[in-house]
């Protein structure tokens, strides 16, 4: 099939396009912060920034988890080549979400931060999820892949518990109307379920 992109096409066309698309939410947020685009951040800008970065973190986690099933679906391995970049974007948005909470919401008040992480289950979950993602981001390079060998794939399975924690973190934070959170949970369940299904069939 001619639709399969070659190595060069992936490197010089598809990857740059995906990169720009993945930067777009962040770029639009910056434009909103500086009032260049949209109608600003609303009456509660800190909440807006935090929620926006968090939801995009979750979306990129789900997008990167959708790559492998997508490759199965089209029976071509090339989408796998986009997985690292999308995973790193997921980590970046999650980290920015965490930093927004740390700096904007908590104003770096260390004692308040520590007590929130310990006492608020949904914050505990979110922090835990970010901690799980850190080694994945660090070992995402080719060098680490070679160094860790077979252990690399095992290590990167941490993304599954991290994704579950992130969905749970979102669900628990909602006051009452959990339908959006449940929809994200359902997407994650489908993405994990298809993996289990595939494993059973092998």
């Amino acid at each position: 099939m001619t639709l399969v992109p070659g190595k060069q096409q992936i490197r010089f066309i598809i990857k740059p396009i995906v990169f720009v698309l993945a930067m777009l939410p962040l770029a639009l947020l910056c434009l909103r912060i500086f009032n260049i685009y949209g109608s600003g951040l609303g009456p509660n800008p800190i909440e807006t920034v935090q929620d926006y970065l968090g939801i995009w973190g979750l979306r990129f986690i789900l997008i990167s988890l959708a790559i492998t099933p997508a490759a199965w679906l089209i029976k071509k391995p090339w989408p796998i080549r986009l997985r690292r970049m999308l995973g790193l974007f997921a980590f970046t948005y999650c980290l920015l979400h965490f930093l927004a909470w740390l700096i904007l919401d908590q104003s770096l008040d260390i004692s308040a931060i520590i007590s929130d992480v310990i006492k608020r289950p949904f914050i505990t979950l979110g922090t835990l999820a970010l901690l799980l993602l850190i080694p994945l981001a660090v070992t995402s390079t080719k060098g680490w892949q070679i160094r860790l060998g077979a252990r690399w794939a095992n290590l990167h399975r941490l993304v599954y518990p991290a994704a579950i924690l992130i969905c749970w973190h979102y669900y628990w934070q909602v006051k009452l109307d959990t339908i959006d959170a449940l929809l994200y949970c359902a997407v994650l369940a489908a993405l994990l379920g298809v993996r289990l299904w595939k494993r059973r069939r092998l």
Partner: protein
Amino acid sequence: MLIRVKQKSTPAPSEIASEAEYQNRRSFIRSMGFVGASTLLGGTACAQENPPETRSLGPLLKSQYSTDQTVNSYADVTQYNNFYEFGTGKEDPYEYSGQFKPLPWSVRIEGAADITGDFSYEDIIQSHALEERIYRMRCVEAWSMVIPWVGIPLADVLKRFKPTSNAKYVSFETVYRPSQMPGQRRPILDWPYREGLTIEEAMNPLTILAVGVFGKSLPNQNGAPLRLVVPWKYGFKSIKSINKIGFTETQPATTWNDAGAYEYGFYANVNPEVDHPRWSQARERRIGGGLFDAKQPTLMFNGYADEVAGLYSGLDLQRNF
């Protein structure tokens, strides 16, 4: 009968956020390809293109209970609301309340009082002088505003119905109009919304029946035409668009308490020492502060302890949260 005088000089909410800005924001969200499912499921409500005009309420009495803290902007007060009858997003009430018709309005008074029955909005309000009450409003979600309400002391209204000695509590109910209130088409809460106060709380001079903000009648999203304001309690106690008031002998059921008794008590007094199970109530974010504004400490009874602490002497506030 009240003659509704529409004043051309009265700014509509649409003048604060221009039509262009407003449209642009929606198209931004659409362009991203993501619309919250709750919005999608909200039904056929159309966005507030021509918000109903609010009318000026004329000369207002000043009040000793008003705070001199900086008042939030009209946009903050009218575009960042929790009013689940119009949707669960903070901007939903502003966007989806355009179909609501607050007048004519009638309120049913029932229960342990000598005078009961149906009374029009004008019957209830007309004989009272309107006061401006600039109050702090603390939401259970740990944010707060300073809002210039217009209203009358609830006690003055309630006394006219001559409650009997059996009236230990006062119950309130929000109107149920799913055709005009799109949020009511989803069973998010057990509609209609209900709230309640002890008779002492209802008679406290701080408690008001509000009919306006910023010197004008209440916009729909703020609880038109008639709402409760109880400034030492979390915002959800200040029930909006009231069409039923009852005097009861036993503690009335209240909506958020029914939805989660573990998280929302009947009293719901602002208390920095009793956390919500999922978040701290020790500090609050004052809306309107910008990106780098720090939270401020929450005060006991939202800073109204001098006026209301006596209502709760001997009551374990950790348990009766």
